């Protein structure tokens, strides 16, 4: 009896400790399994100089592949066979980033609830529904189907996929990345479709910006004249990417001049959360005629979420006909931003409206047919199955039309079924970007670069280029609908096919420039082109500050050095503040004598005023003026546009640039009144109230933290957070910069990879750094080893040998990947 009791107790204890439990929304990992030092999470803790095995057997390899890691843990992969090269890239990337790769794909595909459960108030289920309804899996499938039609792409993607799966198959519980152990699940096999999902997830971050619903409401509430004033096209056209007036000598596509038709009524949709327009980037190339060495220098820093594991994975690929280095997206083969022996390239996002919404008229409640050109066309119903961990599977029916899926309807954020809108998105179209990167990785000169881009459709990017032979160039590449004036700004009537995208801009008519006389090319997400370009261009928002600062500095510099470029990438000059603050201070017209009598609050206002008045507009770490300005603007801007924020239908605020412009021109006085108060406010009231409120907020901030000063780095509090938002796995970093400065670092996003390449004939010199580290393992020294250098504007010289023997100086350790059956 005693024995059975004891046996039962032991088994029950083991079973209890072998499974995870959910308490509220928190999942407690299986305690025995997780805490076991010999197999559990402790095994993910690595010594400082942890090195991998000298030899590994990898199924499917034809020959031995040498992988040399440098001191940053960047793999230098040397393969004698092209297929082996991609197997090795997949294998090595998975070894460092498996959890991240898969988690990003799960998020893109709308499968988060299968890992995380329903979430608080079903947040994860709603997230998954959103992804499905936007047609992310649909887009990825279209891309994957297209990719495997091309033998070169197919080979590259399939071998890369094989490499990942070889690694997954080699894993035991002990070897799993920490996050799998914490959340208690296991990796699935990788597929080519997952590469497609990653690509489309990138397109979602970069190319899904739109405010058509908000603009339509504004048009109906304020009228056309006011809309043109508040949301002009272009918003700011100073210093476009390519300024070549009269140089567009081609026959532009002729569109029937039918104005696009607008559906009736306001749009009572609660739009899905938007991606922050501050996700942007800088890139530029300086011609050899302007540099100290006479060789071109190319620079790029894409601004994305500063998250861990890092968005990018640095890699060097050396194989037959290719020697390329740079950063890759974990989960996609090849190098995305980088350089080879002959050229370098980089990207920034091309702001362009690539989304439209079409109002659907159904025949009846059954939604089986919709109206198109006077006929009832059948719809297609797709039942999305959302598996929920620890809960019942959710089924969601999404209707597809020829326009695309209908995300908003009576079941999702719609208003009583009156607002069925179909979603047309460029990234739903089949495309073959993998070919572009395959070719860019091997490009030798300008014409190779151009040919590679001819295969590129989405997400649209500004590609900057420089070659050892001395060319510099920029090309805005993507598949762009040729638009009539104002087309794309508002929602459209989906019952007429003539409202659709009838033609696309031929690739050779895209905006581009080679070796301009000013001696540099640059882009920073601004309006792309001068007014003589024959196509109408619109976007949610164009950048208006970084571009001008970059061009001003580049115009001024002579015999440019790599150090100059490092300084420019880390430049904290806040042009937005420089153009705004004097105006605000002037409006404020502070009365020091009167304030002095108001006690401590008055004194705080005087001190703040002086800090602002003497500020040099640099958002440096120690600057207090930067903090006061930001706090003031953050209060003033929404206070001014309270009409938009408090309206029952969704409306957009005018851009910061246009706001300041209109204020200075005194053209928006009708918006000065604050809706929630009885009194009628003037601009001065707005400025004063927001100033006092923001200073009070900062005083409170200082008091809470027991700090005497409000340093910008503390106030901004740059936070490099973990992808799954696990607080303890993120870092707070002391870092200057601000979204509108070249060093575009906001609290949660910023330069995600700073790269500088000097294309010297005696050999490429390249420098890089990113906010994180090569290893995705929070228990590794290399999880965050580049973070400090990044925050302090320092760079690493990147080792770029042509042969393994040349690695000596940089070599940390070497792992040879061998075919399974070794020849004797």
């Amino acid at each position, binding site marked *: 009896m005693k024995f059975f009791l004891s046996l039962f107790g032991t088994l029950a204890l083991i079973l209890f400790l072998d499974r995870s439990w959910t308490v509220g929304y928190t999942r407690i990992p299986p305690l025995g399994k997780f805490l076991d030092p010999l197999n559990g999470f402790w095994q993910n803790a690595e010594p400082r100089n942890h090195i991998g095995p000298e030899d590994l057997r990898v199924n499917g390899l034809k020959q031995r592949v040498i992988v040399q890691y440098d001191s940053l843990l960047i793999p230098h992969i040397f393969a004698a066979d092209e297929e082996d090269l991609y197997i090795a890239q997949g294998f090595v990337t998975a070894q460092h980033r498996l959890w991240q790769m898969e988690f990003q794909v799960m998020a893109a595909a709308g499968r988060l609830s299968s890992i995380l459960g329903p979430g608080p108030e079903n947040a994860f289920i709603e997230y998954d529904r959103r992804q499905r309804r936007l047609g992310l899996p649909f887009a990825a499938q279209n891309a994957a189907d297209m990719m495997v039609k091309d033998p070169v792409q197919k080979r590259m993607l399939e071998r890369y996929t094989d490499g990942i799966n070889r690694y997954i198959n080699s894993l035991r519980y002990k070897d799993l990345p920490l996050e799998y152990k914490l959340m208690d699940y296991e990796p699935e096999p990788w597929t080519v479709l997952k590469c497609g999902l990653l690509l489309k997830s990138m397109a979602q971050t970069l190319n899904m910006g739109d405010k058509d619903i908000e603009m339509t409401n504004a048009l109906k509430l304020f009228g056309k004249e006011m809309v043109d004033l508040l949301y002009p096209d272009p918003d700011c056209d100073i210093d476009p990417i390519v300024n070549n007036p009269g140089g567009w000598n081609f026959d532009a596509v002729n569109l029937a001049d039918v104005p696009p038709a607008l559906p009736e009524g306001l749009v009572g949709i609660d739009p899905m959360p938007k991606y922050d327009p501050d996700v942007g980037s800088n890139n530029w190339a300086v011609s050899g005629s302007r540099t100290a060495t006479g060789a071109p220098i190319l620079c790029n820093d894409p601004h994305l979420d500063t998250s861990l594991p890092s968005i990018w994975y640095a890699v060097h690929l050396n194989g037959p006909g290719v020697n390329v280095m740079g950063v890759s997206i974990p989960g996609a083969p090849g190098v995305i931003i980088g350089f080879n022996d002959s050229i370098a390239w980089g990207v920034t996002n091309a702001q362009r409206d690539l989304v439209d919404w079409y109002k659907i008229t159904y025949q009846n409640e059954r939604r089986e047919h919709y109206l198109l050109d006077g006929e009832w066309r059948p719809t297609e119903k797709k039942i999305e199955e959302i598996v929920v961990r620890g809960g019942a599977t959710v089924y969601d029916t999404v209707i597809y039309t020829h326009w695309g899926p209908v995300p908003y309807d009576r079941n999702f954020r719609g208003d009583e079924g009156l607002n069925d809108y179909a979603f047309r998105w460029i990234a739903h179209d089949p495309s073959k970007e993998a070919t572009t990167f395959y070719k860019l990785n091997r490009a030798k000169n300008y014409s190779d670069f151009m040919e590679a881009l001819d295969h590129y459709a989405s997400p649209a990017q500004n590609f900057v280029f420089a070659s050892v032979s001395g060319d510099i160039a920029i090309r805005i590449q993507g598949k762009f609908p040729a638009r009539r004036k104002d087309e794309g700004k508002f929602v459209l009537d989906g019952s007429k096919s003539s409202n659709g995208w009838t033609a696309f801009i031929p690739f050779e008519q895209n905006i581009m420039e080679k070796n301009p006389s000013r001696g540099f090319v640059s882009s920073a997400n601004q309006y792309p082109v001068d007014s003589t370009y024959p196509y109408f261009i619109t976007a949610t928002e164009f950048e208006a500050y970084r571009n001008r600062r970059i061009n001003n500095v580049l115009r001024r510099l002579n015999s440019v050095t790599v150090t100059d470029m490092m300084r420019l990438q880390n430049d904290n000059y806040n042009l937005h503040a420089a153009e705004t603050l004097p105006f605000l201070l002037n409006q404020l017209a502070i009365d020091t004598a009167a304030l002095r009598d108001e006690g401590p609050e008055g004194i705080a206002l005087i001190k703040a005023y002086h800090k602002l008045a003497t500020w040099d507009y640099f958002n440096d770490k120690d600057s207090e003026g930067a903090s006061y300005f930001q706090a003031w603007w953050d209060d003033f801007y929404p206070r001014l546009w309270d009409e938009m924020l408090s309206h029952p239908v969704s409306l957009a605020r005018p851009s910061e640039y246009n706001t300041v412009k209109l204020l200075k021109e005194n053209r928006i006085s009708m918006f000065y009144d604050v809706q929630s108060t009885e009194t009628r406010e003037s601009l001065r009231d707005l400025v004063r109230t927001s100033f006092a409120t923001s200073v009070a907020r900062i005083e409170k901030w200082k008091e809470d933290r027991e700090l005497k000063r409000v340093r910008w780095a503390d106030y901004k509090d740059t936070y490099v957070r973990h992808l799954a938002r696990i607080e*303890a796995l993120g870092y707070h970093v002391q870092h200057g910069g601000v979204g509108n400065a070249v060093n575009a670092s906001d609290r949660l996003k910023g330069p995600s990879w700073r790269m500088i390449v000097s294309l010297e004939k005696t050999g490429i010199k390249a420098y890089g750094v990113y906010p994180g580290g090569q290893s995705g393992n929070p228990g590794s020294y290399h999880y965050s080893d580049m973070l400090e250098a990044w925050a302090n504007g320092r760079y690493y010289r990147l080792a770029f040998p042509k042969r393994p023997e040349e690695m000596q100086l940089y070599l940390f350790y070497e792992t040879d990947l061998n075919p399974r059956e070794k020849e004797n």
Partner: protein
Amino acid sequence: MKKFVIQVVVIALLAYMLELFLPWWSVAIAAVFGGLFLRSDANFWAGFCGIGALWFSAAVIIDLTSSGNLAEKVAAIMHINETLLIIVTTLIGALVGGMASYTGSLVTRKKAPTSG
């Protein structure tokens, strides 16, 4: 006393070896074995100390030699501190080990009269 020490050491070593190939619960197999074949006066404490010592020393060695502060991070996720995390780790192993070795020792007692 000597018997007990041998029992503890054998349980710890056997558990270590089993864990090279089997999941965490294999420590229970080692402890059952120790209780079954190496009976002492304190069979529960033998498994408790054997597995507890193994897990404690493994955790401490890993913690001292690693550089990513992982234990600190995981402790923070669990809202405890690092020391407590090591104690919890040790106690979980020890408890499973103790119950298993005790169970093992009960098997021997039951079998004793029939076999001899």
